[in-house]
């Protein structure tokens, strides 16, 4: 039996510098996986490969048993959505107009949104709780609201696999929690999720497993409690033992007064 998402011997390089080399891992349908690893290890590249936007130099990436290099782009876009880290909108589109763009893989050049497209858009707005923002201008929203719009845009594609690149970046504590609630809700709805995460403390409780891309081509996948261990993290992130607050339980907020 084949896995839902499968990387087999994948290599990818940027102008001579290899970003990923001989990467192997699998993901099952319904999993909610946090992708962690030090800066520059190739997390974003992995997500782009998983979305089929870039082709790998060697090896193969397949989704639901179909290899991306043999899948037309339009068909791939109906299966997987990538919510990018950076997203610029040069004009004053409303939230609704932006989220409707997620239906592009389902529309022909001349056809407008049909009934099912409208339903998918409504559902995406609803799942990310931004229905009330639909008429607002995207560029005038706060960071947390924009993050939700980006996720809604991905959901409007009705993907079977949702890829998120740093969804909690630039969010304050409250908005981070809202975002995690949103991820949990999507997971409960049966969406398979792979999200690159920097803030390790947010992972337990929201994600069912963790994929660690370490230096030296180390790849580990497992339960958050097994992977998020100080010894493993210190080695993967080249962090001196017990120096980072995330790695020391008694350092967590709220700090206790010592005097």
């Amino acid at each position, binding site marked *: 039996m084949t896995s839902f998402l499968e990387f087999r011997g994948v290599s990818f390089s940027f102008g001579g510098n290899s970003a990923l080399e001989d990467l192997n891992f699998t993901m099952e349908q319904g999993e909610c996986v946090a992708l962690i690893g030090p800066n520059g290890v190739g997390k974003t590249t992995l997500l782009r490969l998983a*979305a089929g*936007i870039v082709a790998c130099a060697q090896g193969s990436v397949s989704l639901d048993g179909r290899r991306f290099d043999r899948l037309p*782009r*339009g068909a*791939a*876009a*109906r299966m997987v*959505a*990538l919510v*990018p880290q*950076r*997203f*610029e*909108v*040069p*004009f*004053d*589109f*409303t939230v609704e*107009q*932006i989220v409707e*763009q*997620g239906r*592009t*893989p389902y*529309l022909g*050049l*001349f056809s407008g949104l049909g009934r099912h497209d409208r339903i998918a858009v409504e559902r995406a707005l609803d799942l990310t709780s931004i229905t009330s923002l639909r*008429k607002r201008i995207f*560029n*005038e929203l706060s*960071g947390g609201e*924009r993050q939700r719009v980006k996720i809604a*845009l991905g959901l409007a*594609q009705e993907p079977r696999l949702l890829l998120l690149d740093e969804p909690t970046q630039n969010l304050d504590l409250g908005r981070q929690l809202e975002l995690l609630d949103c991820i949990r809700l999507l997971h409960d709805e049966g969406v398979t999720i792979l999200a690159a995460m920097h803030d390790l403390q947010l992972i337990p409780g929201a994600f069912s497993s963790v994929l660690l891309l370490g230096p030296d081509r180390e790849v580990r996948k497992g339960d958050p409690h097994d992977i998020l261990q100080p010894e493993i993290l210190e080695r993967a992130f080249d962090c001196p033992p017990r120096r980072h607050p995330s790695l020391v339980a008694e350092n967590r907020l709220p700090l206790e007064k010592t005097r």
Partner: protein
Amino acid sequence: METEIVEKTTSASAMPVRRAIRFYDDAFFLPILAFLVVVLAGVLVLSMGTGATKIGLREVLTSLWMGHASHSTNSVILFEIRLPRVLASVLVGAALSVAGLLFQGLFRNPMADPYVIGSSGGAALGAGLGLFLLPRFSFLGFGAAASMAFVGSVATIALVYWLARTNGRVPVVTLLLAGFAVSTMLSYSTYFLVVLDDNFGLRTRVLASWLTGVISVPRWTQLEVTAAMIGCGLIFCFPLARRLNTLALGDEYARQVGVQVEKTHLAIILTGSLLTAAAVSLGGVISFVGLVVPHMARLVMGPDHVRLVPVTALAGAIFLVLADTLARTMLAPSEIPVGLLTAFIGGPFFLYLLRRTRREYTF
């Protein structure tokens, strides 16, 4: 130690609320379109009545209704001089405005305009070269000027696009610099053609006026050719409009949702060039129309290109008919080139936009 509670300032966090007139809702689209059609009709009749010989509203309307029947002086003025010229303004205004809209979408940059990015200059040089080198050339009924204007426009945009693009984006600075350099070289090359021409006859005067932008009284065949070009261009815009909306969210995003980005870019360049070339072969290099009109349309209608294409075309036609009427009556009996007038209006507007877009949205 007590934490000091800093008094909340309201100005710091509040986003500036821009009070543009917005009719984003679908319900406004058709009424606005109908309104523009009515205004365009009114402006046409008004423009045909104004000039050295004033012709009353009733007479314009009855003449138009009856057709070119009588041989009275007024009828000759209306049908041989004013009507072709007004129709030329309609075509040029619509074509340049929609071309501007397409280029702004392509470059994802509200400062793009056929004049600013040099495509008008390229079309003018192409048309000039066509007139000089291949005076007898004809392709599918299009003369050398029109066909070469198209080639010149495509080549220029491709060049500016390639020069200005960095990391998949076209920043304002590189766009303006590349456009400025290329269009300056092109317009001086066209001047060079003027100098080279030894028989200082008709062609030179045609070329010289091309560089400032003058809508002269066109021949009917010329109108038919350009109307065909512009008609095709506008039809191509409709499938492109939806793609432009997706491309506005970035090439990478568009690729992700299955848009064939490179092919779409090429289609936009070709369509915009067709429109620019048609406009330039009628009216020469008229600056900033493609900047001002789409911008105004966007302020009112919002950025949805599906609605912007027809609105921009109509608004551009209205704008240029008004501008040309003003150009030929303001200093009567002498005429000023309409390109001069649009530069006077568009130049300051362009600078205002440049100041404003310093606040670039990124996320």
